[in-house]
């Protein structure tokens, strides 16, 4: 019996080739998109879950900030031994630092100071060494397998001596590379104890929040109580009032970056958006399947009637047609697997994640393959199956010709659903593109074109040499550049209460910074190298700072700025002076957030050089600058980037989202049009006799085309009426995440609507024109 079903199915599918191809292709493409996005979503959700104790690891947040004092971890362990099994601190080195082994020397970015307990809390299996003793000696270093390979090749790394910051460190452990789905990444772990030799008393400071603290809680810990205990500790030791502590579960860290976070973070809403769109695409493909099968079902009415007269139970018939749906699904799935396999390298590269089909879990794959087949086969096949099995033999045997209106309403509403989805996706893609374009072209308040950032190094000689080069317009330097996080420091004005010490973001620069970036000075003047007091007693404010302080005319106002005292235990006044000018609000952070108040002053601790080029051949300029650098600082590695590129990278997530949504939109449109094409081909075929008679009676070609296209036109217009308000609402809520955003324009919706309308019309017109041009004699004689 099964063989008979199978035979009929195969022969039916091979006879109606366009039907088979459209269904398999639509389903295959839709599923492939879904599988790839599924892999990506799964990857995103897998962040940090590889740690053995993942469910018991918490990150300590002070208020909304991830940064905690260096003193917290040791005190937490000694004062409340029962609260945490283990506590570990991280202090990632922010700027690239040189690590040297014999003649090998690389500028490394993934260096982190940490405690020996790091191997207890987190699961980093050791390839060499002992996790109890690794990092207990202050001059030890643990390195990743990758780093070991890079420095030592095939030699045994243990016991080798590497040099960092002028200190010799002994390799005591080699750990497996930190997986990419980890919110922190390091190739070099150095004991925090060593940091004391560089930081001195700062390490005893309760107000210097520069460390990231994690704890491994015992099972069944009362988290609320633990949070209260830690807040209490902070208040007690610092003598100040800390914001309430939050213990953030490890699996929430990746999607919920805190303030002052430097960990890798993801955007949960993008994960949700993409997962939703993937499901929509699959839905569109399934609808095709349902629609076409139901339409083509009328070709099988005779067979159903006949089988019933031969004594087939309804159950058997439902089974037969469900089975056929499954067969098509298997074909679609196979195509999808092939497509995924072929396109995966591209997506690995595009998403920069090691996405792969987990072939090692073969049972899982076979299981999900069968599961998907059953699910989609049933979802898409059950309506046609029951629809067919319901036919009464008397009616289905009477004649081959049955009205195509059966299931017509349902079929039409399904097509409308498809076009609602497609139009909605077009609206989303257009909005995201416009917003991206807006962000990339918005006047940031400074000119980021042709500005190169490099290490300041030995700054003054470097500047002197660079300024001799012909294609360099100006050179300046600063502590941070736009796109980086500017630090907060305390400040005070004379009219503030004596005990209040608010903080404001601060930027230390060299004179010429404002000019090099082309920031507009709105009042007063900018720093001048020739005026010596500018170095010691002058501040610039941005407009936001002046507004924040309520100063209409800020020039001449007095201000004092605080820094850590010599012993690193408290803040003291570091600079007193007056405001010499106010600059425009330049966007030094991303456009996700509004410009925050900022104090700019001339000071020490400059580590980045800004070089504005004046050439159309940046390659030559970079080569010249590199050789200058090598002359001034021989032996130091040279690195650089262009400010404009770096700033664009802030919107990398949106850029990728935009591209993926655009891609998915096209896929959804393609699949929907594919379905419409198949459906229309079927209707045109069904109506050939009607068209023939109409033509004999004198209908013109245009009349016939209009007749056939009218339905589609109606459906698309209805779907636009639904998609536009939904799209408007959804896009407005997405834009609400941005401080600087576009207005949703009418044009955008008109374009989206027109696009789906035109596509739909082109799709159906092929068939309609063919049907309309047909010689009526043929179509009438056939029937």
């Amino acid at each position, binding site marked *: 019996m099964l063989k008979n079903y199978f035979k*009929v199915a195969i022969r039916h599918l091979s006879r109606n080739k366009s039907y088979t191809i459209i269904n398999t292709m639509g389903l295959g493409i839709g599923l492939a998109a879904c599988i790839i996005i599924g892999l990506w979503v799964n990857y995103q959700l897998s962040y940090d879950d590889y740690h053995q104790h993942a469910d018991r690891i918490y990150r300590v947040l002070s208020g909304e900030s991830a940064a905690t004092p260096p003193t917290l971890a040791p005190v937490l362990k000694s004062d409340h031994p029962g609260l945490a099994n283990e506590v570990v601190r991280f202090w990632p080195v922010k700027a690239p630092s040189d690590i040297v082994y014999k003649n090998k020397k690389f500028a490394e970015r993934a260096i982190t100071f940490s405690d020996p307990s790091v191997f207890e809390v987190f699961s980093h299996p050791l390839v060499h060494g002992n996790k109890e003793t690794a990092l207990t000696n202050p001059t030890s270093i643990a390195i990743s397998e990758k780093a070991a390979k890079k420095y030592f090749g095939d030699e045994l790394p243990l016991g080798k001596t590497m040099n960092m910051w002028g200190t010799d460190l002994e390799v005591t452990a080699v750990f497996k590379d930190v997986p990419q789905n980890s919110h922190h990444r390091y190739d070099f772990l150095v004991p925090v104890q060593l940091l004391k030799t560089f930081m001195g008393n700062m390490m005893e400071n309760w107000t210097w929040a520069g460390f990231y603290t994690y704890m491994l809680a015992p099972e069944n810990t009362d988290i609320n109580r633990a949070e209260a205990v830690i807040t209490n500790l902070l208040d007690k030791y610092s003598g100040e009032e800390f914001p309430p502590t939050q213990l953030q579960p490890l699996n929430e860290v990746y999607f919920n970056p805190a303030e002052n976070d430097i960990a890798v973070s993801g955007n949960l809403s993008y994960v949700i958006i993409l997962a939703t769109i993937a499901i929509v695409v699959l839905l569109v493909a399934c609808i095709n399947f349902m629609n076409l099968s139901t339409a083509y079902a009328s070709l099988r009415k005779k*067979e159903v009637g006949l089988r019933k007269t031969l*004594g087939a*139970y309804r159950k058997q018939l439902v089974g037969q047609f469900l089975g056929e749906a499954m067969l098509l699904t298997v074909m679609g799935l196979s195509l999808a697997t092939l497509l995924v396999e072929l396109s995966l390298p591209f997506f690995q590269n595009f998403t920069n994640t090691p996405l792969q089909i987990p072939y090692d879990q073969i049972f899982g794959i076979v299981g999900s393959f069968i599961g998907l087949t059953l699910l989609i086969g049933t979802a898409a096949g059950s309506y046609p199956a029951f629809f067919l099995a319901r036919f009464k033999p008397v009616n289905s045997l009477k004649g081959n010709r049955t009205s195509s209106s059966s299931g017509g309403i349902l079929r039409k509403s399904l097509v409308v659903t498809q076009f609602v989805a497609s139009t909605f996706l077009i609206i989303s893609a257009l909005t995201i593109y416009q917003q991206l374009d807006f962000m990339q072209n918005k006047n940031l308040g400074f000119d980021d074109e042709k500005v190169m950032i490099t290490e300041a190094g030995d700054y003054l000689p470097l500047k002197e040499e660079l300024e001799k080069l012909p294609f360099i317009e100006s050179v300046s330097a600063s502590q941070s550049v736009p796109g980086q996080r500017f630090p907060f420091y305390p400040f005070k004005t004379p009219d503030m209460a004596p005990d209040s010490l608010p903080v404001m973001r601060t930027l230390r620069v060299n004179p010429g910074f404002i000019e090099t970036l082309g920031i507009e000075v709105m009042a007063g003047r900018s720093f001048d190298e020739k005026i010596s007091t500018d170095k010691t007693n002058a501040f610039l404010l941005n407009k936001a700072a002046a507004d924040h302080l309520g100063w209409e005319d800020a020039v001449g106002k007095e201000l004092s700025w605080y820094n850590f005292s010599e012993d690193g235990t408290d803040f003291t006044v570091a600079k007193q002076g007056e405001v010499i000018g106010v600059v425009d609000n330049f966007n030094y952070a991303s456009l996700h957030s509004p410009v925050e108040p900022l104090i700019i002053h001339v000071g020490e601790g400059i580590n980045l050089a800004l070089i504005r080029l004046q050439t159309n051949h940046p390659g030559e300029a970079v080569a010249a600058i590199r050789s200058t650098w090598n002359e001034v600082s021989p032996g130091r590695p040279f690195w650089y980037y262009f400010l404009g590129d770096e700033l664009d990278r802030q919107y990398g997530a949106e850029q990728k989202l935009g591209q993926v949504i655009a891609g998915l939109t096209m896929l959804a449109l393609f699949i929907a049009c594919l379905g419409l094409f198949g459906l229309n081909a079927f209707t045109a075929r069904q109506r050939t006799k009607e068209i023939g008679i109409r033509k004999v009676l004198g209908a013109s070609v245009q009349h016939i085309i209009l007749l056939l296209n009218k339905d589609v036109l109606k459906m698309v217009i209805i779907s636009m009426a639904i998609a536009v308000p939904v799209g408007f609402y959804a896009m407005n809520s997405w834009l609400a995440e941005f401080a600087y955003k576009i207005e949703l324009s009418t044009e955008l919706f008109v374009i989206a609507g027109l696009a789906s309308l035109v596509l739909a019309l082109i799709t159906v017109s092929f068939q309609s024109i063919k049907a309309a041009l047909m010689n009526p004699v043929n179509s009438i004689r056939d029937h």
Partner: protein
Amino acid sequence: MIQLRNIDKYIDKRFQRTFILKGIDLDIEEGEFITIMGPSGAGKSTLLNILGFLDEPSEGEYSFLGEPVHNLSEKKKSNYHKSHIGFVFQAYHLIDELTVYENIEMPLLYRKVKSKQRKAMVADILDRFNIVAKKDLFPPQLSGGQQQVVGVARAIIGSPKLLLADEPTGNLHSEQSEQIMEMFTELNKSGVTIVQVTHSEKMASYGNRIINLQDGAVVEENPYHA
């Protein structure tokens, strides 16, 4: 075998009731070869469909082998289709996707006949109807007469007690028609009860009783052998 008592079949349309069959009383004994005749729209096909459980009467009683049909479940009806009733249609109704062999085999599949036995039965019938050479062809590759031979072969392979034929020769020319009718006569001799609907008096003459329908009622039974 079959008793029909006061069978009505009607369609209600708004305020009007249109009768297709009205007050039919009919007894059919096992081994009869009955022909139903009458003008277009007289209700011949409807009567045949009711006899074959494909349609239900609006009123009246129908008992098949002593069992009231209106009490039969869908499943029971299917079982009777498998074991007791065979159909032959004017338009043949062969499945275009299946070969001659597979079309004839299909009823046996629903009856869950073992593969070996199935082969023997199909081979036997192909031989009997002289269509062995055509067994691998698809229906559209055959002439109408050949298709109907396959249709008859399919109808009788399950050795039904009752064969219902709705204008079996309606689409065939006379030579083919005679061939089919001779098959029917053979079958009838071997004990199969046959009810056929036809317009042709010549075809009717193969049977042993004629029922004349007009406007849904039996006007004459057996006008020739009265």
